[in-house]
């Protein structure tokens, strides 16, 4: 394909999309009569829902179906695949790791993002300071994993051999023996989590910083007049005001963490007891050709997200009730 053809395709695609959406909105706008509202709603929601039906719901249902079948999706095996997940020590380990990930990452990343957002808020170098922490977001997961693998790189403590990984160099400077970070079970999972935190803190900071700036001035001024300041201001005014944003951030990071895949795959390949559900799904399905177990693992992810969904629904209800 020539450059010209490629851009041609791009323009055609954008034009088609614009035309379709234009027609849909135009028709929706013309809708009259008792059912007009309903037709308009459909015009607004249907395109997205259609895509989701095909692209996510259909695959999800298929996965659910496969999870009750054997490796090649031919013979029905009932809940055997699930039994396997909850009895095999290696797969139990995978579940344990996933729990550690999903608990630690959102909390720490959000906390760091929030603290940093508050600390640099209104500072003269705010924009610059924020870009520094946001920078990892601009790097792909694979790229970030490469960076950290380099940091954890290990060289033995021997004559004539220097550390090339920063983490171990620090240990050496402190007079401690260098450590094989990625091999150090169970701590190695934590070292992988650090990478995710490093990436996601920027996301948390960006959104929370915006939320902080959106707190109405009258609230802060009133509090100021009452002599509230410092830490108390933070606890009693800032935190409650940005609660919805906090929920969004924690939710988004949690779901992202449940799906974490590239980091584990790039850094340890799921070895040394660091595998997580999303990575194990990929391994089981595409490398071991066990589509049954793979599908059952994916279903575990679906189940794990239920508490998060319920919490969000309750929060939304609360807001509606207000």
């Amino acid at each position, binding site marked *: 394909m020539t450059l010209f053809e490629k851009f041609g395709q791009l323009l055609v695609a954008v034009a088609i999309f614009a035309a379709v959406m234009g027609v849909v909105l135009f028709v929706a706008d013309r809708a009259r009569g008792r059912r007009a509202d309903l037709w308009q709603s459909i015009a607004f929601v249907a395109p997205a829902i259609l895509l989701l039906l095909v692209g996510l719901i259909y695959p999800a249902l298929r996965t659910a179906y496969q999870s009750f079948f054997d490796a090649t999706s031919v013979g029905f095996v009932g809940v055997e695949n699930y039994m396997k997940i909850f009895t095999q020590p290696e797969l139990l380990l995978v579940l344990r790791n996933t729990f550690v990930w999903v608990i630690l990452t959102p909390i720490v990343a959000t906390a760091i993002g929030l603290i940093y957002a508050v600390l640099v808020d209104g500072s003269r170098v705010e924009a610059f300071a924020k870009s520094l922490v946001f920078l990892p977001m601009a790097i792909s997961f694979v790229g970030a994993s490469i960076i950290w693998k380099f940091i954890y790189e290990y060289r033995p403590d021997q004559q004539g051999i220097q550390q090339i990984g920063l983490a171990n160099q620090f240990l050496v400077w402190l007079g401690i023996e260098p450590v*094989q970070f990625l091999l150090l079970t169970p701590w190695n999972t934590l070292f992988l989590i650090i990478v995710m935190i490093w990436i996601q803190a920027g996301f948390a900071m960006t959104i929370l910083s915006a939320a902080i700036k959106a707190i109405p001035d009258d609230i802060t001024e009133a509090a100021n007049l009452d002599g509230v300041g410092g830490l108390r201001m933070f606890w009693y005014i800032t935190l409650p005001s940005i609660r919805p944003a906090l929920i969004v951030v924690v939710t988004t990071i949690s779901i992202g963490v449940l799906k974490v895949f590239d980091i584990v795959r790039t850094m*340890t390949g799921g*070895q040394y007891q660091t595998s997580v559900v999303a990575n194990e799904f*990929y391994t089981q399905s595409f490398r071991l050709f066990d589509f049954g177990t793979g599908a059952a693992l994916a279903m575990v992810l679906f189940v794990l997200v239920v508490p998060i969904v319920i919490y969000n629904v309750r929060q939304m209800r609360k807001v509606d009730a207000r």
Partner: protein
Amino acid sequence: MSAVTLRRPSRTTTLLSATLGLSLVLAGCGGSDAGQQAAKGPECEAYTQYGDLSGKRITLYTSIVSPEDQSHIDSYKAFENCTGAQVVYEGSKEFETQLVVRIRSGAPPDVAYIPQPGLLGTLVRDTDAVKPAPQQVAANVDQYFSETYKSAGSVDGTLYAAPLGANVKSFVWYSPQKFTEKGYTVPTTWDEMVALSDKIVAEGGKPWCAGIGSGEATGWPLTDFLEDAMLRENGPEVYDQWVNHEIPFNAPQVSAALDRVGSVLKNPAYVNGGLGEVSSIATTTFQDGGLPILDGNCFMHRQANFYAANWPEGTDVSENGAAYAFELPPIDPAAPKTILVGGEFVAAFSDRPEVQAFQAYLSSAEWANEKAKFTPEGGWISANTGLDEANLVSPIDKLSVEVLQDEANTFRFDGSDLMPAAVGSASFWTGMTDWITGKSTEESLTFIEQSWPK
């Protein structure tokens, strides 16, 4: 014009090839444009059997990526020019998983290079997307390849995939220069090798270094080592029983073999020269595992012939150079020499005539020599007996081919590549990784035995 004359151009051949080249261009055979009419020049004589494939496209999917892919792409040029077909090459490091995705979605490539026979078996049994090898390919395989390779490319008695490249795994890398310096000699038996190791320890050195890190495949170099030890400890028959799961994975013979590996790699006095303690073997990448040999931080490193690619540019890899390899010695000097080999295979997912023609070409002696010719730095060999040793440039490649073509040797294919994927590319790797990081022989072997699909 044969490949051989092209390699060492004398004035006459240069002139000849220039004239020929010109005439071929005139005849329409010199360009790389695939759409044009197939040529009938003398250079194309060997290719007439494939017929006129003008305008046909063959998609090829492999795990070989830049820069190693270039010599492959170049090696199809003659085929493309003479038949008019076009080979669309695609290499990816995610090959193994992506191939499964593509097959399952109904969009397989025409041809794929399968790195392990085990994967081939799974694909044949689980998806029946793989086409049996056509007549011509079968004939080529019978003519040019040994039984070991033929059976590795067959599933349940049917030949599906012809062998492509090969590797010789039973090598120990060392530095001839350092050996001479220190007055060491290449050991010819296991005991001599242990004696040499002890001598090095006594002189304050570390004899061995190793690295098994390889991303999600971490652990595979140890599976090779164990297979080599199995062959030497128990002989090829027991080895076959073990690979076919006729004896359990944790049978006493296997424990004995693994303990023998352990007597080298788990011996803190022996390893891990320049890299750390025993457990550092797990995190050192296999690519870096042998490099301390160059600095004299260690002296021996068991790894296949393809390790040659990992020496830094400019390293003299030859019999008296900075690095070279000797065969992993036998335990019983009287027993026949056993060599562990590996290789990749050409599977087709289409039986269109042009695809079959391309398969036939890849299994021919012409291709093997063409490929060797386009790999001027060396680092590639084939088990194709039609491969002319004169086309190989690097000493280690020549040595590997000599070993492969030596009729006195007994060959066995890499067992982990033959085992079911759940073992061969999963639990065997993790089991070995756990073993080197501290688990006992019994525990590790039992773990692998339990993962064997029922």
